[in-house]
């Protein structure tokens, strides 16, 4: 059995370790990147990954820019991406879905949730992923988006 490979991108070393420990316990093979730029390098040079766990707020190239770079590159355009943030804002969730995220996790998430989300995004077909994303954009678009960014 070939282990599925996950790239965890977060500028916080302890949060990367937490994700790595959780996903490794579920028998995923995990690589880490401490920035958006490093993530793009790893994706370009490294082995093929099955999914990316991407923090949104990072210095330099943030999660939004990293996701955009992943989506415009034909080699990674269809790579499942799970975006994570501590910002509890509906507008950020909507932005994530519109930008091509496959899941949006609010930190701190229950430990088992990360594993189940990764399993789900990896096993969906491209059509299922697009439908899932479109449905969430449709739902969130109905919500009022007030408050500070």
């Amino acid at each position, binding site marked *: 059995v070939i282990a599925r490979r996950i790239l965890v991108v977060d500028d916080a070393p302890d*949060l990367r370790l937490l994700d790595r420990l959780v996903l490794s316990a579920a028998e995923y093979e995990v690589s880490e990147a401490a920035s958006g730029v490093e993530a793009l390098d790893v994706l370009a040079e490294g082995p093929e990954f099955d999914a990316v766990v991407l923090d949104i707020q990072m210095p330099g190239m943030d999660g939004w820019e990293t996701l955009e770079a992943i989506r415009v590159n034909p080699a990674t355009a269809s790579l499942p991406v799970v975006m994570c943030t501590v910002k509890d804002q509906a507008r950020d969730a909507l932005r994530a879905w519109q930008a091509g995220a496959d899941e949006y996790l609010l930190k701190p998430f229950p430990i088992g949730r990360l594993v189940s989300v990764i399993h789900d995004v990896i096993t969906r077909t491209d059509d299922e992923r697009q439908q899932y994303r479109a449905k969430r954009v449709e739902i969130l678009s109905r919500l009022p988006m007030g408050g500070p960014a």
Partner: protein
Amino acid sequence: MTAACDEARLTELASALGRDGMDELTKLFLRESRLRVQRLRQAAGSPTIIRAEAHQLHGAGAALGATGLAALAEQLATAARAGDTDCVLVLTNGVGTELDRVAAFLEHWTLPE
């Protein structure tokens, strides 16, 4: 005074990660968080650095169940964004004190039987 860490969250983590994983995680969290507080104290007048460090403390604190620390860090990021330097100073000191409390709590915390 409330506990420095949410025991239910710590138990959830320890159950998933095991004793070795939990030890590794808490040690790295405390080491990184002390460095974050140190950088916060050196970053007076630099809202960008303060917001970045406070954001990391917020996320890592919340992940480890250090709810008070996470809340203070979130307030600190908000104060830095608003340019409220007096509030930033007070909250930076508060974050340091709360981190000491979290460290003391984690040192004595064990997974319930």
